[in-house]
């Protein structure tokens, strides 16, 4: 399992969604948020500072 590449699946069509991510060996659970901009979700802030590639997908 490649923990450096995660998909973030958003359920519903809210403008903003958040969830939890915890990486193996990590110190703590990180809250990750996405916001909808121009119809597409984008990660707001990156607690992993680029260590993890996060691809956002909608599940409407």
């Amino acid at each position, binding site marked *: *399992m*490649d*923990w450096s*590449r*995660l*998909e*973030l*699946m*958003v*359920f*519903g069509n*809210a403008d*903003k*969604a*958040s*969830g*939890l*991510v*915890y*990486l*193996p*060996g*990590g110190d*703590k*659970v990180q809250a*990750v*948020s*996405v916001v909808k901009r121009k119809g597409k979700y984008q990660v707001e802030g990156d607690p992993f500072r680029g260590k993890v590639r996060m691809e956002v997908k909608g*599940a*409407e």
Partner: protein
Amino acid sequence: MTNANFKSFIGRLILAAAVLLSTVSNAQIPISSGDPNQALMNEPVDISGDFRNFSNTYYLADSLGKFDPATGKGEIVYGRYEYVTRMAFDNILGGLQSVPANEFPGIEYAGAPSLPFSVEFVSPRTIRIRARTGTEVGPDQPSLMLANGTAPQDKSSWKYSKTTDGHRYTGPFGSVTITQNPWHIEIRDNAGKLLTSTNHNRDNAGKTFTPVLPFSFVRRAADYSRSISAAWSLSPDEKIFGCGESFTNFNKRGSKVVLWTDDSNGVMNETMYKPIPFFMSSRGYGMFMHTSSPITCDFGKYIASVMSLMIGDEALDLFVFLGDPKDILDEYTNLTGKSPMPPLWSFGFWMSRITYFSETDGRKVAADLRRYKIPADVIHFDTGWFETDWRCDYEFAASRFDDPAKMISDLKDQGFHISLWQLPYFVPKNRLFPEILEKKLYVRNNKGNLPYEDAVLDFSNPATLDWYREKIGNLLKLGVGAIKVDFGEAAPANGLFASGRTGFYEHNLYPLRYNKVVSDLTQEIHGERIIWARSAWAGSQRYPLHWGGDAANTDNAMAASLRGGLSFGLSGFSFWSHDIGGFVQKTPESLYRRWAAFGLLLSHSRAHGAPPKEPWEYSPEFLELFREADNLRYRLMPYIYAQAKDCSERGLPMVRALFVEYPKDPGSWLVDNEYLLGSDLLVAPLFEEGESRQVYLPPGQWIDYQSHLTYTGVGTRSGPVRSRSWCSCAAAPLYPISNWRKRPRTWTGAGWS
């Protein structure tokens, strides 16, 4: 051994195991119909009869004696009572009547004693109430049940005030009021609403014809031992949850619950592998009875307005927690410990049966798991890895394992961790039996002899711990990843332990000592908190994880498993599993299909029981559905792993009752046939054959995980069932999903790659 011989060998062993289990199962008499003349070894101890006995003396809490507001310490004045009968219109009632002292010389003993009690504060949400029934020898000892051995004290959050008839302490989340006469302790929330209050004789006398035993203690005529009945009020619509892995009614209101660790021999009866002396109320409080003595809780079964916590111990040590379910669980696990995170690999699928017998078996199942593309991280060897099935001597059978270390290493290279079964009981034919007797590592009976035909390891004996650690340590150093900590519910009730106490205190503590020694050793050798245990007591959540025992292969057992898991999660345990498909027999395919979809959406997932359990031993259609459900688990692994970490930090359960997330929704308190995996994924297993089921949805928008159809709660929906259970996501949360793909070319497991 030829293949034909091997099958015959398995057949004989399974038959032997089945006969054994059948015999044990038939011997069990439900505790509700227990006959004192038919006592059977290790039947649960229900002390409630001692509280309605015409030979005993009862001391009813009457008024407050002296009290020091600065320390919260004072005395309760008790009145002396005995049961008498009254006949009216062909009906006899037994009720309490005040009686004079009967001791001689009278000046030596108090007829109506004043005895110590105290109110202390542990945190802004936690109150500690203690009461003694007589002289206690020695100061408090560190408690294995408490995370740090002792409870902290909060001397700043609660403010004292004098009331017209007593004393009050007020904190940010509620208050405690002690009234002078009649003596009461009243627990209120921060809006002043009465949550519960102790029951006094005057609350009942003249107000109901039903005789009620109020807050009191009993002195038994047989031996002058004493036990407390802490009687508290119940309110209309109040519901009670917890008490460990209880398979009976989810809401305990109206039930009597015996807290005594027992080999339940199934998951549909009232006894428990994992009773926990903790519960929570829908009214906004929880209680932890800090003792390992037997306890019987009557949650309004005898009379709807009173819950009686009948505690075998001679002193009451009761912690009361204030708040919503999440607050209560957080506070309780602050006190008794939170579940640490198990290793990542343990969240993968465990493949097992009773039992793989040989290195050949182990290597074959490993190859088949990869061949049939069933994602898995663990292979478990159950009772058959010794030279003689079930006869645990901690040695791989030389006749069937050419090189255990190499097997373990090779399987590790293929991505598998190995789990091994064992137990703490030793039959006379076990080669270790003479050594255990010679070194006095066993529990003695009250005559100083062996209580049973088996020798039971005494984990309160430091010498036993050293001996046992060496045996288990050798296996872990060989490369074994996890030890199955099986049994542990049968420590002799009247046994003498090295701790200096009898089974009265050590029986329920036994699982905690047993869990702890294996978990600590695994942590020391591998740096990982992982065991696979059946029995538990308060504090065992610090040693994850536990599975649900020997479920039958039936729809009812599947449903009862979920009730047990929900109750267990409401008792401070974050992690839990059960035997997917049930244990006792080969699982009917239709049941296994539905159970797999349920069991693969827990914190931990293991298929185990009478063979076959391997999915490729069923139809091609089943294999594909199992693969689909297992792949869903691995795809959800980042969600599961993050939720697990969150649970371990907050004392929350992974298999979560709906009301934990939706405490303001009345309907969520009623649901015991669906759950939330973590905070947001609602799972509604299909407990009967069919293509749909009714699903209760809490408030909000819910989206079918697979079809993406949207539903809006609150209410019950009858929806189609995909993958044999119904999964739905709370809208707006974000799910971290792995890039896991079905049928990967190379195995990478749950771990980082």
